[in-house]
């Protein structure tokens, strides 16, 4: 009995020691407020923080600029109001290897060194995936607007419509892809002026890698004083279908919070799969007279 308790304590301690999973990337620049959601805990991000698989990094307007660097040299810059997830399960049509990064919302800049071998999707998002990036690309996923700029080198781009991949296309260095809503995408020679204006200044500069500065320096993540609110993760809960199932197990524990539960219930039409979790009694077989059973209630459409 005491052995089981000891093992339980040891496993529970792993996340706080940063040993729960190997780190994929390191936050090397954090300007403004960026938060990390690991499992069901909210952390404030600081430079030197190690990021793991399934970590969610996001900011609001108070997050000015953030960069994290992968060990293989791939660099990801984040603009304000951006939400990304590292190496998530994102559906079988994106290949066996999870995408390196999933962009839910906002703008990211990816810099890929020449010596990084192609392995799986570099970036995935609801409206487009990037299976290959030669050198540098800026991708923006705003409500109703999707854009990609091949800053340097070519990129392979797969449009997604109704969450299904379309034939791959390629963008030459300097070309700009823009799509409004479900309309036809435009590929033009130059990025639009509003797109350029929307980028943080730091995106336009060549900032050197800083990963070396943080080697051997472990930064202990401090859990935020507040727990995850429904509004913090609602865009993820309502994300594309391929992404959503993992959040039900991940944030099941949060449904104990009345605020979180109320949020889920209020928006149930957008994530009906949570109905079964919140109201299991509705799905229990009911004994009927005559020995037959049937479901008490169908989930909300």
């Amino acid at each position, binding site marked *: 009995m005491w052995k089981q308790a000891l093992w339980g304590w040891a496993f529970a301690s792993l996340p706080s020691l940063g040993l729960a999973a190997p780190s994929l990337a390191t936050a090397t620049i954090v300007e403004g407020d960026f938060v990390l959601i690991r499992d069901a805990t909210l952390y404030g991000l600081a430079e030197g923080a190690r990021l793991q698989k399934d970590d969610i990094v996001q900011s609001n307007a108070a997050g000015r600029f953030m960069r994290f660097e992968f060990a293989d040299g791939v660099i990801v810059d984040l603009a304000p109001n951006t939400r990304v997830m590292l190496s998530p399960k994102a559906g079988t049509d994106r290949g066996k290897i999870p995408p390196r990064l999933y962009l839910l919302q906002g703008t990211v800049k990816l810099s890929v060194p020449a010596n990084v071998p192609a392995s799986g999707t570099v970036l995935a998002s609801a409206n487009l995936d990037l299976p290959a990036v030669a050198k540098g690309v800026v991708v923006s996923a705003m409500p109703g607007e999707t854009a990609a700029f091949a*800053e*340097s080198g070519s990129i392979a781009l797969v449009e997604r419509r109704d969450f299904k991949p379309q034939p791959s296309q390629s963008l030459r260095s*300097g070309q700009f892809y823009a799509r409004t809503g479900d309309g036809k995408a435009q590929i033009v*020679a*130059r990025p639009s002026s509003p797109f*350029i204006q929307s980028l943080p200044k730091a995106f336009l*500069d*060549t900032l050197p890698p800083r990963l070396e500065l943080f080697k051997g320096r472990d930064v202990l993540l401090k859990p935020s004083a507040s727990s995850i609110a429904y509004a913090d993760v609602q865009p993820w809960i309502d994300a594309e279908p391929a992404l959503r199932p993992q959040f039900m197990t991940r944030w099941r524990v949060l449904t104990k919070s009345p605020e979180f539960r109320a949020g889920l219930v209020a928006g149930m039409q957008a994530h009906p799969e949570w109905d079964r979790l919140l109201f299991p009694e509705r799905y229990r077989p009911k004994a009927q007279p005559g020995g037959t059973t049937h479901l008490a209630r169908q989930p909300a459409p």
Partner: protein
Amino acid sequence: MKLLLKFNLVFLVVFALGLAVSGTVARKLLQNGAHEEVLDRARLMMENALAVSSYTANQVAPLLETQMKYTFLPQSVPAYSSTEVLNALRKAHPEYAYKAAMLNPTNPRDRAQDWEEDVIMQFKQDPSRTEFIGERDTPAGRSLYIARPIKLSNANCLRCHSTVDAAPAPLVEKYGPANGFGWVMNEALGAQVVSVPMSVPMERADRAFVVVMGLLASVFLLIGAALNLMLWRLVIRPVSQLSKLADRVSLGELDAPEFKAPARDEIGVLSDSFSRMRKSLVHAMKMLDT
């Protein structure tokens, strides 16, 4: 005519001649000096422009490489930065004008004017020529200019100036596809030109000339005054006194006081000779009386 007047007349003639000759020579030398000084300063400005261009090409442009993929920044162009720096320098030296004049510029403000085209053509015809100095008439008066050829020596520059297709899209977007392409390595494509109005070295030389001539005239006048004073004290005054004494003695005033020469110079010797002659005369007169 009195001795002092004769002396002063001669002195004034020599003074006038000396002042005229030295003035002419000094004026020429000062003008040449001011000319060279203006040219040296122009060369320094040109060297400054070259240094700024080189700094921009080697250190600034690489830092702006990413930004240039979004928007063309003229600050990354060596000729632009040197022109801007020289324009700032002109606030302290407004008389100097700088231009990187090009036959086929990307930026229209660098397009060579007619006379600048002629200068560039001279560099084209004689590739070994490294500098050209000339003068020209302008509405504001005559102007002095110094020009050096602009040649492409860095192959990286061809990325923006070889063909429209090879040029960065933001550059074509900003300046259009018509100008600034087809440049060739090591060929005179333009000229750095620093112009300065001729009135600048002339005024500078004139200011120095007035000072030099003023000093020269002052020295001449001082010398003249000193010579007059010395001539009067050492020669004219003792000779006049001796002459008056000789007159009195010749009129029979044999007991007139002796003349004491203040110094043992030629006047002193003359005075001694006159005293001896007077004594001999007194002695002879006494012998005649007895």
